[in-house]
């Protein structure tokens, strides 16, 4: 089968995948994970770079038990739907916890983690994941 990861693809998405840099429509607020000059929601051409916050809330989640190519060794792993304070939603890997610790509404923080390796000597892909925020008791 075709290679799953290609170096140029990872390279061009680096600002989104490592820092959650997005392109936001100045007219309607819709967010794009790719550089664009047309808003996908309202077709405005007033789009500017922005950054999503590093914290979000969990809406729902599930567990991938049947993994795709390049994720065989990671399954089972959690993926969740998260929402930022501006209403932007993102589906992302959820890490550093068990599914039982997750409840809709809990606060999550962004971390940058290894996502996958493509083959034994292949590319290592990094990107954002989210994990539950641990609050200090004092």
């Amino acid at each position, binding site marked *: *089968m*075709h290679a*799953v*990861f290609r170096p140029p*693809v990872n390279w061009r*998405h680096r600002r989104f*995948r490592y820092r959650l840099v997005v392109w936001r429509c100045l007219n309607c607020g819709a967010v794009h*994970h*790719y550089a664009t000059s047309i808003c*996908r*929601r309202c077709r405005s051409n007033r789009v500017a770079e922005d950054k999503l916050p590093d914290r979000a809330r969990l*809406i*729902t*989640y*599930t*567990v*991938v*038990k*049947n*993994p*795709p*190519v*390049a*994720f*065989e060794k*990671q399954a089972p*792993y959690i*993926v*969740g*739907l998260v929402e930022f304070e501006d209403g932007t*939603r993102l*589906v*992302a*890997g959820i890490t550093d916890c068990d*599914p039982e610790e997750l409840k809709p509404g809990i606060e999550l923080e962004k971390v940058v983690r290894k*996502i*996958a390796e493509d083959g034994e000597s292949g590319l290592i*892909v990094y*990107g954002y*994941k989210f994990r539950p925020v641990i609050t200090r008791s004092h």
Partner: protein
Amino acid sequence: MRKVYIVGASLLKVDEQWNQSIDSLVTQVVDGLSEVRPWKIDAIYVANALGEILQSQANLGAIVAEDIGLAGVPALRVEAGGASGAAALLAGYQAILSGLADTVLVIGVEKLSDATPEESVFLSSLSERYDLLGFQGVTEAALAAMMYRLYLERYELPQEMVAQFPVLMHEHASKAPHAQYQFKTTLENVLSSPVVSPPLRRLETTAPADGAAAVILCSSDALPTIQHEQVVELAGAASSTDIVSPFDREDPLKLSAAARAFYEALARPGLSREQIKVLEIHDSYSILANLILESIGYSAEGASGLDAKNGMFDYGGKVVINTFGGLKARGHPLGATGVYQAAEIFLQLTGRAGACQVDGAKYGAMISLAGLGSSAYALVMKEG
């Protein structure tokens, strides 16, 4: 006004066909159209989703035209994920209505059994955005599972209200000779099958399938010159698109593209939903059956499970869905699925559906989706 007819349909048993290639599946299925004469075809549309990945074969228009002895005829391949077959049918319908073609051959063919299990999961997620989701290992089944969970929570329903749809599909497929899974199952079996992504279970999804189906379309002008045994009018066809991720839509539980396509296809011949007695829907995940039936208005929001339990979608009910088992049990040979749906409605409206026959059906419709409703196609057929 120019009209479009279906004058022949052919379909193969959906199965894991280790000994068959794309070419041999195509020649077999086209052989089943021999009752239609003469073979003067103006255009060929080949629906296929993954040939260039799984069989390393692109350019299926020319390949298939040669396979069936029609090199010389304009032919192209249509890809629209799981809706490829319906997209090819819409292209054929448009070609005939435009006046540029009088006879069109639409073939859907797919061979998924060549993939490993991990490749299958990867490939079944290709209709979702790879740069945003696929690269993170987010599968389409996981997205469907989260829609499922939100659905159960919003309407405070037990899982049974979704998980009973596969039971109904297997019941219908048990009488369908061309179905992949002809065994009956129970709600207990569905709910105890292995978890794919909670709450979604193995028996609420599809499995790798190979298959081919074909139909011949012709114009009202050409109909008198073509020898055929049965005819059905392709009375309406339409498509629509939506924001790709369900969770970026205004309501992730509303399949707006399916609703738009369905009502536009019905409006062309001026039909109402109530006249449709046979309905083929795209149940690649159990939850999509609920969401389609609610989005196109057969059930109130959150009520499709109860309606199904009360027999509304079974024989004797308001409309019979997936009369040969649907994607769940007839099987889902991805790019061919839409052509199977059309061929099955053809069988129903010509009284040749055997033990699956819906008595007195004059109109039938099908809804086919790519991804989780980002593309939707609807076709409406009328007794010939």
